[in-house]
């Protein structure tokens, strides 16, 4: 495809729609926010701040959605990891990087448990991850914290959580940008990334064509646990404490961002860049509402409405192209026992 065709393809793509949406929204908030503060440096960093942690969850969700799975656990795993990290730092003399590695492994283990339930025992991913996340992982957080938040004083962690470059950009932003770039490249250009799309589109066919969907699935679940742990640790670092609620509710906006960004369940399309745009839109939207004076309680409402809107837009676009269900393929099997 020569450059002209590439340009045309881009303009017809979902990503360009998102960029237009983003532009409209930015304009709207800029005009209507008090003192046009929407585009102020302070506000932009505030948006960037809220994006950094969610970004990790978005990547995790996007990859699994492409595989046709849904992971509701990374938020809970994050909280548990953050709590574990705080607890280990406070109660042991382990150096901080060891603690971080332990927490990462912790997250990976949860992810592998999810993978086991889904692959070996043919659980439906939504129920397996819900059980592991909102029950097991959440319970872990409670136990580790013993009911109350644990403060973090370790200088290295504190630095990661709160240091700002030029007192504007939190260090953590760079972590998430690097993560998105790396995962984006992996997804689009490597064999593994491509096999995610293929295995997600048709698991059995991909197996008979020489791929290993089981292995891919395990890796992605483990990865989700790891990214959840990273997100949770960053959150705890920022708040300077591991607490009970942590990133529990982060999975939902992450899924919204991914779906908004064009990732379809086992549909074989969608990109990390699209998810990034989706994330921008959601974060910008939430922030815009806050700036305009809406109470923070509205964020949940806004998230939900936004998801519905995103799905509606997807549906309308699909209808023109000839149909398909939104959100998930209707044939969502609980037990793929026949495999």
């Amino acid at each position, binding site marked *: 495809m020569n450059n002209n065709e590439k340009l045309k393809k881009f303009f017809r793509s979902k990503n360009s729609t998102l960029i237009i949406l983003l532009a409209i929204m930015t304009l709207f908030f800029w005009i209507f926010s008090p003192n046009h503060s929407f585009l102020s440096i302070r506000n932009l960093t505030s948006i960037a701040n809220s994006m950094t942690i969610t970004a990790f969850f978005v990547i995790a969700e996007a990859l699994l959605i492409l595989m046709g799975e849904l992971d509701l656990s990374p938020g809970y795993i994050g909280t548990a990891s953050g709590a574990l990290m705080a607890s280990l730092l406070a109660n042991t003399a382990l150096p901080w990087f060891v603690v971080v590695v332990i927490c990462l492994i912790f997250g990976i283990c949860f992810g592998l448990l999810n993978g086991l339930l889904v692959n070996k025992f043919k659980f439906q991913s939504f129920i397996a991850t819900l059980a592991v996340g909102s029950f097991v992982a959440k319970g872990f957080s409670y136990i580790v914290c013993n009911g109350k938040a644990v403060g973090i004083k370790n200088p290295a962690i504190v630095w990661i959580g709160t240091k700002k470059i030029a007192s504007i950009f939190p260090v953590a932003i760079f972590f998430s940008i690097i993560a998105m770039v790396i995962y984006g490249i992996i997804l689009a250009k*490597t064999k593994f990334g491509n096999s995610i799309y293929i295995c997600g589109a048709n698991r059995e066919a991909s197996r008979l064509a020489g791929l290993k969907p089981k292995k891919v699935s395990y890796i992605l679940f483990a990865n989700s646990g790891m990214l959840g742990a990273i997100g949770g640790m960053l959150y705890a670092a920022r708040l300077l404490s591991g607490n009970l609620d942590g990133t529990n509710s982060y999975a939902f906006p992450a899924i919204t961002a991914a779906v908004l960004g064009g990732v379809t369940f086992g549909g*074989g399309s969608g990109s990390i860049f699209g998810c990034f745009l989706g994330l921008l839109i959601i974060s910008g939207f939430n922030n815009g509402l806050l700036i305009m004076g809406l109470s923070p309680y509205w964020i949940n409402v806004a998230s939900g409405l936004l998801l519905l809107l995103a799905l509606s837009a997807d549906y309308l676009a699909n209808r023109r192209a000839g149909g398909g269900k939104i959100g998930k393929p209707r044939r969502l099997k609980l037990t793929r026992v026949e495999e």
Partner: protein
Amino acid sequence: MTDNLSLQNQGTEKLLEFVNISKEFPGVKALSNVSFSVRGGRVCALMGENGAGKSTLLKILSGDIQPDEGCVRLNGKEQHFSSPYQSIRAGISVIYQERQLMNMLSVMENIFLDDLHENKFGFVQRSVLRKKTQELIDEFEMPFHPEDIVGHLSVAHQQMVEIMKAYRRDSDIIAFDEPTAPLTDKEINVLFNLIRKLKERGKIVLYVSHRMGEIFQITDDIVVLKDGQLVTTFKTSETTEQELVKAMVGRDIGDTYSNLVRNDKLGDVLLSVRNLENDAIHGISFDLRRGEILGLAGLVGAGRTEIARAIFGADPIKSGKIIFDGKEVHFKSPVDAIASGIALCPEDRKEQGLLLGQSIRTNISIPVLSKLLKGWFIDRRQEAELAEQAVKRYSIRTPSIEKKAGELSGGNQQKIILGRWTSSKMDTKLLILDEPTKGIDVGSKAEVYHIIMEYARQGIGIIFISSELTEVLNISDRIIVIHDGHITGELTREEATEEKVLALAMKEVEGVKL
């Protein structure tokens, strides 16, 4: 069951008419001005290549879709069905190829799906249902019970339940769409008896099938469609297979098989299977030489696909040996088999072979992704070249390699899968083809046969599985017959006849209790 009904139906002969039916889908004119009629008491076959418009016609008859022009007339009266339910009430039952059953419900609930005999409080009268279902089961000579869960029945029995479902409605018009695919001979007999009974009762029967033998056995008239238009109608008794094929394809393709250039240079032994055993297959042993085409014949469900999958590493093996290309191999998954040079074109091309929503390019490159790397990344240009080569080599009819596989016809889809295994980056030594021409029109079939012969000439060993006896007999160099997971016999090309193969396919194996 005394046939008082036949007395009732005398004097009121039923008439089904398709009048100038046209239907267009975005980009494709499925039906143009199709008109014909069928009288009661006659079985009318609907024939034509894939894409000829048969299923569209049936869907219009059932009310699933509406025609753009024209209409269906029952006994002279115009009908306009806005939903399938309306056509059922008007006395039409269409039995589709895909079973539409409720797997977790009982046989009787499935049969009486639309009429659960509710009393005035809305309660289902189970005893009534049970009795009526048992009557049907007896009439059909089936071994299951009314309260059995449909999901637990064999595929053949499930299909019979599907047929009983339509029969129960006592519809005036029953249409069968490829009904015999999952059935064993016993059930096929029951089905044909049933169709004869329907004829006696003055019902109108439409019968869609690719199986020539059945058409000549059970039908009275034949309607041939091609590219959405009615080509011609025949009386079954007055036509021949060749004439039919010519009408369907529009050209005389001669004897499809006599054109083929066979491979006569067989190489050394490529594959040796000894006592292969797993849940579905027992004691399977055979050899295959390079350049040889080995046909696996047998009834549906005999275990041929299971043998293929076991060799390919798709299903686990309990015991037995496989020696491939001189080495003993233990494949834990298809990945290993592919690496050794074995390829499988699965039986269900759409569900297990292709990614329908992905492009041709993606579909072709799946097994060789690791060979298309430039550094860490996939070289898209190489990938595209690979796909272009396949498209050209197999004359895959498509405007570009980016077209989604699901949008191509059956024949082209099969060619994509063939292309996948024989691309320039693949080194396939053994090609296993499971029902490669299922649901493909006659023209594409011939192309596939030529391709198979070419592979054989190149020294690729081929295992050819097909339920079409003519095909197996004409393509294979040697035929192994499978029944109930066992090999019941082996025939060379010269000595094989339809009768011999069929006899072996039904031969009981010692020690196997049924």
